[in-house]
C-alpha cells in the first residue's frame, strides 16, 4: 500500500473550467516525487487538494489507506501533523508581525503536539541552518533565502512524514537556490518531499521519481532518470527542449 494514493482526482470550478482531470498517482515514503509542468498545468491546484485546502470534484486522496476527509476534524489534525508545506514566496508566507520563534512553533501549538516547544523549534532552526539568535527576530530582518529556511523549519518542526514544496526556490536568486536545494536534499533523509516546480533541473536533483503534468493530467511518470533520458510523451520532450541549460 502506498503512503499517498491519489485516485481519479478531478477538480473543476464549473462545468466548463476543468483544472485537474482524472489524475492518479502514488507516493512511497522516502522517495521524493517531483511534479513538473508549465504555469496553468494545475500543479498548484493539485497541491491545494493534497493539502486538504480545496475539495476535489471527484476522486479521492488517501494517506496510509485512509481517505482524506477535510470535514473530519480529528482526522485533519492527524493529517496536518503528517503533511506540511513550504510555499513559493518566502516574503508573503511569513507573518511580518510574528517573531521567528512563533512562526516556527505554529504547527506545534496549533496541533497541540506534546513536545518541548522551545527545544523542538531550536532543533528545527539548527536543521535548516538558521543563526542561533534568529528566534526573537522578525521576518523583515532576513534575506529571501533565510526566509525560505524559516518556512522550511516551520514545515519540519512537527516532524511530518511528507512536505509539499511549491516552487520553493523560484523566488530566490541562483546562488541561494543551490543552498536551499542542498538543504532539501539533506533533509530528505528524514522527510519525504513532493517538489512541485516548472524547473526540471531542480526536480532531477531532488527526486528519484517524476511526474509530468499537462492541462490537469499526468502525461508521463516514472523514475526521473528514465523519464529524462527517454521521454516518450511529446509534451515532455517539448518541456525538456525548452529548459535553458547553464554552460
Amino acid at each position, binding site marked *: 500500500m502506498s503512503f499517498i494514493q491519489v485516485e481519479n482526482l478531478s477538480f473543476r470550478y464549473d462545468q466548463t473550467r476543468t483544472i485537474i482531470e482524472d489524475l492518479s498517482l502514488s507516493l512511497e515514503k522516502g522517495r521524493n516525487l517531483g511534479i513538473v509542468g508549465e504555469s496553468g498545468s494545475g500543479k498548484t491546484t493539485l497541491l491545494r487538494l493534497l*493539502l486538504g*485546502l480545496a475539495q476535489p470534484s471527484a476522486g479521492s486522496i488517501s494517506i496510509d489507506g485512509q481517505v482524506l476527509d477535510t470535514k473530519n476534524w480529528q482526522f*485533519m*489534525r492527524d493529517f*496536518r*501533523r503528517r*503533511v*506540511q*508545506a513550504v*510555499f*513559493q*514566496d518566502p516574503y*508573503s*508566507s*511569513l*507573518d*511580518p*508581525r*510574528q517573531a521567528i520563534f512563533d512562526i516556527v512553533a*505554529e*504547527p506545534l501549538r*496549533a*496541533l497541540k503536539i506534546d513536545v518541548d516547544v522551545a527545544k523542538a523549534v531550536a532543533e528545527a532552526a*539548527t*536543521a*535548516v*541552518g*538558521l*543563526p*542561533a*539568535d534568529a528566534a526573537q*527576530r*522578525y521576518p*523583515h*530582518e532576513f*534575506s529571501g*533565502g*533565510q526566509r525560505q*529556511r524559516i*518556512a522550511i523549519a*516551520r514545515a519540519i518542526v512537527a516532524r511530518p512524514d511528507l512536505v509539499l514544496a511549491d516552487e520553493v526556490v523560484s523566488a530566490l536568486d541562483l*546562488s*541561494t537556490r543551490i*543552498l536551499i536545494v*542542498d*538543504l532539501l536534499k*539533506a*533533509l530528505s*533523509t*528524514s522527510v519525504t518531499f513532493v517538489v512541485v516546480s516548472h524547473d526540471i533541473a531542480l526536480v532531477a536533483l531532488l527526486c528519484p521519481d517524476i511526474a509530468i503534468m499537462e492541462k490537469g493530467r499526468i502525461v508521463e511518470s516514472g523514475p526521473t532518470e528514465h523519464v529524462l533520458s527517454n521521454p516518450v510523451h511529446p509534451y515532455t520532450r517539448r518541456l525538456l527542449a525548452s529548459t535553458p541549460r547553464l554552460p
Partner: protein
Amino acid sequence: MSLTPADTPQPTAISVRRKIPLSLIVGGLIVGLHLLAGILTILWTPYEPTAMVGGRLAEPSIAHWAGTDRLGRDLFTQILIGARIALEVGSGAVLVGAGIGITLGTLAAFATRTLDDVFAAAFDILIAFPTLLVAMLIVTASQTASLFTAVLAIGIAGSAIIARLTRILVKRVLSMDYIVAARVAGSSWPSIVFVHVLPNIWPTLIVNLALQFGLAAMAESSLSYLGLGAPPPNASWGRLLQEAQGTVYTAPFGAIAPGLALVTLVIGMNLLADGLRAFADPTRRRSR
C-alpha cells in the same frame, strides 16, 4: 543535518532598537494633559462650574485664566470639565464604533461573495450620510439629548467607516500566503483571526481609531453646539462656543479658549496615532 550556509549573517551584525517617535511623545503629552485635566475635574475644579464668581465677560486674569462668560462663570473651570466630556464621548464613541465596525468588517471579509457585496454596499451607503446627520437622527429618534445618546449616536455613525476599513484590511491579510501556511499548520479560523489577522491590521486600524476619536470629540462639540449633546449645565466645548458666539467681537476669548482646547485635543490624538503606528510596526524599527 547541520549546515553552515554562506548567507548566514553574523549574529551581531544587526541589533534592533525601538526608537520612540517624536510624534508619539508630543501627541502623548498633549492628550495626557487633556486626560489629566479631565480626571482632575472629578476631584477638584478651580471654581464651582455654575457659580457666578466674577464680572461678566471678564478678560483673562490671574484669578480667571480664561476669563469669565456672560453670566460671570469661570471659563477655565468649564474648559477643564469640557475636556472630561470630550474624552468621555470620544472614548465611548470609539469603543462603540470599533466594536460594531471591527466585528461587521471582519464578518464581511469572511462572508460569501454575495453577502460580502451586500455588506460593502451597506457600508458605502452609510458613509455617504454625514456623520453629524446620522448622529442627529439618532439623538432625535431617542427623544432625549444626553451624554449617552451622544456617545451612541457618534459611535454608530462612525462605525461604517471603521467597518469598511476593517473589511479591506482583513481581506488583504487573508489573501497572504501566511494565512494558507497557518491553515496547513493546523490553526483554526478563530486563532488565525487573533494571531495573524488582527495583529496585522491593528497598526492601520489604530491610526484610524485615533482619528475617529478626534472626529468624535469634534462631533460631540457640534452636537452640543446644536443643543443635541450633553444638556446644560454640562460644560461641553461645543456649548461654550455656542454661548460665546453672540459676544465673539466684544469678548473673543470666550470662543478662542474652548476652540483652542478642541483643536489641540484633535491634533494631539492625530500625533499620538501616527506615533503609535510607527512604534508598533516592526518593519519601521530602526536597526543600527
